[in-house]
């Protein structure tokens, strides 16, 4: 009897493995586990067996039944899954066709992106971001930044002045404070700021040292060609405390340059002249295209790097130690030139964006051609 159960079990296993579809499985179930099946009959007839056989036959028979039910269930699931897959596999699509975007992707202007990148670097260094007026008093733009009355930057050919008649009737706002240059036709006090530097003085009037700020914003000069637009964007930096040195300026700008242009960059400081810093330096960063060598290897031959014009250096900004005369204008706000010192710098955002992204002509930034904007 036990041998017969084993036989049935083996037969059924083989049949389940070979079943091609659900219908065949159902036949197998009826044949081996159905009401009329031999195994069912054996189990049903256990009571008629001699007592010593009842235990072993019952146990073996039940084991066989449980196993076969399990095998049948598993085989059925497998076959059904295969049939479902067979059914939907005909519903094929071209996965290489474009998807349907939920929204169109817009773009921030490259100048905004560059400005934010620079802001974020200085925010990380502990600077606060400030803004100031673009239509500004001569006092903040020139006088308090140590530009003597006759400074050439004050000439009509370099600086945009505002027609006082267009400012309304509130003389307090455009009065001739500051030492405006008297050029025909008359005194001028209100101008379009030529740099973001006026905020140095405004910020120092507003807060006592230590002060660490950057000032992004629009600036204006009377120039127009491939490298000058009458409107452009700058970021000013100002750090004033009791013991901030020229070496601190170098370290700060080196950190900035590496954050923006890559970790291997080096800086070069060339002494220069600005009316409101002393000592003043122009700052070059080592060229990131040719790694400062001035030479590019193109297809085995060496060519002059056209980004840095073979010099290995890219000029990026002007800076220096705040001139004591500037502190003199805010002395009463806590800036005694004998007690405080610090540095200032100013950079053109367009210049940085042009270098980073290879934009060849400054004017492209203000044309707003979507074919250009969508590259960023």
């Amino acid at each position: 009897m036990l041998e017969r159960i084993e036989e049935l079990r083996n037969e059924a296993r083989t049949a389940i493995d070979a079943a091609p579809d659900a219908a065949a499985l159902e036949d197998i179930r009826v044949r081996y586990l159905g009401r009329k099946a031999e195994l069912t009959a054996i189990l049903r007839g256990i009571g008629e067996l001699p007592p010593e056989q009842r235990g072993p036959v019952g146990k073996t028979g039940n084991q066989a039944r449980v196993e076969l039910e399990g095998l049948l269930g598993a085989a059925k699931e497998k076959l059904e899954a295969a049939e479902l897959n067979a059914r939907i596999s005909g519903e094929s699509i071209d996965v290489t066709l474009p998807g349907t975007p939920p929204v169109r992707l817009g773009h921030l202007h490259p100048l905004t992106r560059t400005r934010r990148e620079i802001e974020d670097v200085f925010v990380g260094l502990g600077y606060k971001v400030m803004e100031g007026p673009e239509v500004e008093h001569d006092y903040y733009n020139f006088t308090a930044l140590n530009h003597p009355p006759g400074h050439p930057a004050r000439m009509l050919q370099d600086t945009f002045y505002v027609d006082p008649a267009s400012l309304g009737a509130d003389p307090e706002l455009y009065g001739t404070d500051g030492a405006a240059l008297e050029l025909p036709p008359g005194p001028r006090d209100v101008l379009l700021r030529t740099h973001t530097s006026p905020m140095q003085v405004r910020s120092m009037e507003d807060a006592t040292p230590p002060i660490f700020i950057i000032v992004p914003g629009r600036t204006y000069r009377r120039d127009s060609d491939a490298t000058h637009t009458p409107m452009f964007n700058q970021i000013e930096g100002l750090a004033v405390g009791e013991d901030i040195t020229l070496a601190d300026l170098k370290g700060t700008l080196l950190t900035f340059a590496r954050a923006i242009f890559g970790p291997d960059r080096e800086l070069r400081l060339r002494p220069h002249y600005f009316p409101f810093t002393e000592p003043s330096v122009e700052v070059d960063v080592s060229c990131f295209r040719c790694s400062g060598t001035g030479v590019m290897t193109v297809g085995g031959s060496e060519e002059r790097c056209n980004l840095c014009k073979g010099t290995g250096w890219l000029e990026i900004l002007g800076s220096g130690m705040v001139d004591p005369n500037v502190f003199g204008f805010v002395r009463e706000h806590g800036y005694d030139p004998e007690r405080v010192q610090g540095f200032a710098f100013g950079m053109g955002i367009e210049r940085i964006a042009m270098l980073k992204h290879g934009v060849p002509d400054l004017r492209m930034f203000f044309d707003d051609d979507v074919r250009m904007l969508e590259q960023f």
Partner: protein
Amino acid sequence: MRAPMAWLRSLCDPGLEARELSERLSMTGTEVERVLEIGAPSADGFVVGSVLAAEQHPNADRLRVCTVDTGDDEPRTIVCGAPNVAAGQTVAVVLPGAVMPGGTKLGKAKLRGIESAGMILSETEMELGEDSDGIAVLETDAAPGAPLAEVLPVSETVLELEITPNRADCFGLFGIAREVHAVTGAPLAEAPWATDAEASGEDDASDHASVAVQVPELCPRFTARVFADVTIAPSPLWLKARLIAAGQRPINNVVDITNYVMLLTGQPLHAFDLDEVPGGEIIVRAATDGEKMTTLDDVERTLDTDTVVVCDRNGPSGIAGIMGGQISEVSDKTTRVLLEAANWDGFNILRSSGFLGLRSEASTRFEKGIHPDLTMRAQAVASKLLVDLCGARLVPGTIDVDARLPRFEPRELTLRADRVEAILGMPVSVAEMTEYLERLGFGVENGGESGGEGVMRVAVPADRHLDTTREIDLIEEIARVHGIDEHLPATLPDRGESVGGLQRHQALIRRLEDLLRDSGLDEAVTFSFVAPDREGVPGLDEVAPVVVHNPLSEDQSAMRTDLLGGLLAAVGRNLARGAESVALFESGRAYLPERPPSAGGPAAGDFAGVRTAPIAEPHRLAAVVVGPLAPGSWRGQGRDADFYDAKGLLELLAEAMGAPLTLEPAARPFLHPARAAEVSFGGAPAGWIGELHPSVLAAIGARAGVAFEIDVAPLLEAASVGAESFEDVTTFPAVGEDLAVVADADVPSDRIVATVAEAGGELLRSIRVFDVYEGEQVGAGKRSLALHLLFRASDRTLTDSEVAPLRERIVDALGGIGASLRG
């Protein structure tokens, strides 16, 4: 400023190639913009020759066959076309194989049957002058065969320097030489003014001329010397060569000397033909208003009362410090010269040259401000040259009208060694400081009566009097000569307790910009200035702009009062280039000629600083969408954006800020009159929104378009973002209820929603419009709004018996505005 290398080396020779010297100068504050090569590419093959014989060419009338000793074993035969070549002359010879200025290589040539082994050079060929008729005869003791470069600059390298405005001293070559001396340590030649010319004769300058200065503040010093027996002639070659290399055209010996001395000392001079000055009387005065004179460049100039003129008895003969006049110009006939070396107020020269639109080598130097003592230096150098080169007799005596203004008194500064390190953050020894300053011409005395160790008394030389007025100016000199790039460490400042970061409005504006970007708009940056007619967009010119007094062009002469105009122009440009749909936004300021707000922060135009800004500069956001905002794909094109799409953008911004947004119908000339609204945030007016007027669309070639422009400040003022607090919405679930409200079609949905909200009270937590129906089922002139209401209490689960009375109150309230539930 051009610095010819050979001339510079004669004053200070650091033994460096032009490139190396340029590098050194650039790294110490004197930027070399370019290194120019003038003349022949190389001096090889250019030698001194001695003409032994010059015979007529047998086959050509105009050629001569010369025998020339060029230091070789045998003299060479050179065929020459110059009429003035003669035996006994020392000439410049170029040998076959040498490369001429311009790049051609000289070969052996047969001229009418006779082979010429070289060429005798004319001034033109050496690029020294325009006299090409004859060969250049050299005045030199150099032996035949000596390199020509020892006599004349054959192949000249010129540094083109960018002199910073504080360094007027470097507008003279000796100043540049001193700078080279300072930054390299190479020895500096004796100052060219160290010795003066010998005067002779019994007369005195004052016998020949007189000078009266009526404006001493503007003419701090006027010196004049008189030269008799002057012979006007071309300058010697070496002088011409130096002038040309420095970028000046040789004219005649007297004029060339004035230019040469200016180039060397930085002090401009002017030579008068004294016989053309009636009575020898010179008067320096302010011009009268409208006074006219003709300058050397043959232009009649109209002067004003701030212009200073140098006059003779009859009127102006020159504009002080800017340009001389024709009246007493030195000519071939001149025999008596009055040489002026005067000092003029820099600011006045700058003003006058700006007023006249006339700049010159002289005005460029005076406008930076130079010290009156330089006049006598220039007189000394020029006198020697006039005596040596023009055969002139220096008449004894100098006419010297010196106002002795206190601002030019010699200056002494105190320099503290510890201050140098405190500013720079790098150590420089007292010995080094002393050396650097002394090389630059400063007098340094250590210690002294007032100071102890490390305190120096520094005497400022006349050259540096105007730009070196404080200790910090000395520290800068020390820093740059010591080598900032070479020695300065890179450190970071101690920031103490200061905390960085974006201000709230800056972070929120970034978020607003990002939202517009992520909604499918591209960010534009347009110019702040616009045409006064605002590109013809109707209504924009109703706001008076801030006007630029000196714009580059008329269409950039007004500051924008809106962002719309620039955006429309940008959209129009893109459409003209073939774009089918354009969605642009701008985040920036408008410029309004009104008093700026005294609150609201920078976004409103309320800036830091004691003095109020001259105008109001509110930060704005504006957008223009032409065509679909939703992206198209191969499954279908997006629908052209309409009013509700634009409003959807504003709602997105308002929701992100947690600010309540309301719109009220209101027309603007550039908007569709029936599809336009005023925008408010939290009740404060902020701008407008609408579909663009068909005429505005037509002007930019668009078929449909929407726009908005809002002030950011009211939005941020109403914003609650950042101040959120947690609310439990899970413990006690909300109860939903839908209402279909029928009202006259012209009752704004806002009003219905507001009525429902008020009647629903605290428990009514939200109202959403989910359907709008107009048609037969509600009757003509009526509209049905389907509202989804959500009721919730924070402390219990609401029951129907609590919600039912609220519903009744809502229905009653709706009845009050003529609305009812749909039956």
